[in-house]
């Protein structure tokens, strides 16, 4: 058990410290790197409580894809300077109430969920459906997601799809005069239409561009 608690405290301290550093560090790219460190230590904690599937999915989805895109955007947009201007400017106090409201909301939500789970375990019937069947947690997750909760699962997938299509539609613009290559056209070119053999008289040459 000692080894277990050593690992637990190591990962949780790293998680908490890096979460603080995400908001505290001046450089936005550093914030994203701390966010990644946070994700990784959280997924280690997941693995420690035996939820290895969730831990790996956390690594693949959040660290492997979402955070890469975060980094991408932060590097490309050079947000670092913008952030500094916000905090240096006098109207920065406008952002503080909004942030406070949102963080209070999240805090209250977490309190409600954890309190309910701690003192009224019967409102969460997931405990009953998993049971101690001796299945690996990939199997038991699949058995719950694709049977009892199939509609919710499908609906959340649809919402993500709609969001994705919406983002593409909003940013897509058709520009005139862009040169595009048609692969079919390129591949189906024959020798007859590509090359022309001309008889050229000496000292006359040939005009190409008419």
């Amino acid at each position, binding site marked *: 058990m000692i*080894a277990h608690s050593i690992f637990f405290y190591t990962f949780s301290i790293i998680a908490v410290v890096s979460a603080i550093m995400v908001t505290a560090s001046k450089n936005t*790219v550093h914030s994203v*790197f701390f966010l*990644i460190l946070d994700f990784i230590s959280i997924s280690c904690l997941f693995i420690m409580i035996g939820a*290895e*599937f969730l831990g*790996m*999915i956390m*690594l*693949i989805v959040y*660290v*492997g*894809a979402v955070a*890469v*895109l975060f*980094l*991408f955007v932060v*590097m*490309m947009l050079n947000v670092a300077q913008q952030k500094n201007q916000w905090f240096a400017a006098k109207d920065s106090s406008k952002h503080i109430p909004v942030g406070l409201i949102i963080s209070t909301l999240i805090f209250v939500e977490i309190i409600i969920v954890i309190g309910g789970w701690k003192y009224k375990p019967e409102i969460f019937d997931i405990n009953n459906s998993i049971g101690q069947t001796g299945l*690996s*947690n*990939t*199997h038991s997750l699949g058995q719950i997601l694709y049977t009892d909760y199939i509609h919710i699962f499908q609906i959340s997938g649809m919402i993500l799809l709609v969001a994705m299509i919406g983002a593409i539609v909003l940013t897509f613009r058709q520009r005139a005069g862009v040169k595009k290559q048609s692969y079919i056209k390129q591949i189906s070119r024959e020798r007859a239409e590509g090359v022309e053999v001309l008889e050229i008289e000496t000292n006359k040459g040939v005009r190409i561009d008419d």
Partner: protein
Amino acid sequence: MEYLSIVFEEIYKILFLLVPVLVSVAMIVWLDRRVWAFVQKRQGPNVVGPFGLLQSLADALKYIFKEMIIPSSSNKVIFILAPIVTMTLALIAWAVIPFGATKVLADINVGILYLFAVSSLGVYGIIMGGWASNSKYPFLGAIRSAAQMVSYEVSIGVIIINVLLCVGSLNLNDIVIAQQSMWFVVPLFPMFVIFFISALAETNRPPFDLPEAEAELVAGYQTEYSGMMYAMFWLGEYANILLMCAMGAILFLGGWLSPLEIFPFTLIPGAIWLILKILLLFFLFALVKAIVPRYRYDQLMRLGWKVFLPFSLIWVVLTASYLFYFNLLPVN
């Protein structure tokens, strides 16, 4: 004391795995250069040692004694961290590769997800290196590589789903054992081809080596690196290539299984079969490098998103329907 003996035993096992991997990475670089040279009617490295076998060791020695230059305008911590991250990620993935029914360092339930996660983390070494260098070419290389690796991971993920449908388990040993009657390369051949091409893109090999396209970007994300840090990038890259070959061998070529379960083949241990399969795939990697010209960037993106992703998704539907219709789904 009990803990200590467990720790020492594990360290011994890890060293027993890592040292051969590192040596074979050095050998594989030599093999790569030799194959490349033979395709182009050259000799390749053939001076140091028999057949030039020790060329990589000589190169490594050279890198160790070279000066490490850290650009003054770079972000020093991340600049130094980047090659370390690349190297570490390339090596930790070997923990779950099974070399035999029991010869595996960590026989975890979600082995294939672990491999996939580690290979998707590999992009960070490149992004960190490119960003921390604080110069144009590395930055462009890092951006290109991030987009490319994220795109091709999607199709690799879908291909893995295809294999998992036929296995019914995420454990790598179960995946190998499920291929006892037939290697998955036979029923899922189109997926094997797509996996191979996606693996080329995932490891930034030609024809998808745009992140380090020397004609446009000098050396991409590793332009500012020198000495030992450059060597670590280089080792990490080749270890990743070997890892992708091992993943292909396990998913499609039956891992440590021998091709036929009859007398002369069963004498050879499974580890040798796995190594032979990895070498076969690596030989293909090296051939492709020599014979194929580099893709243009928009063609690369088109291939990933508009060809591979829809095709492998359709194949998932086909596999699932086939298994469901003939009642072959591995349910337990």
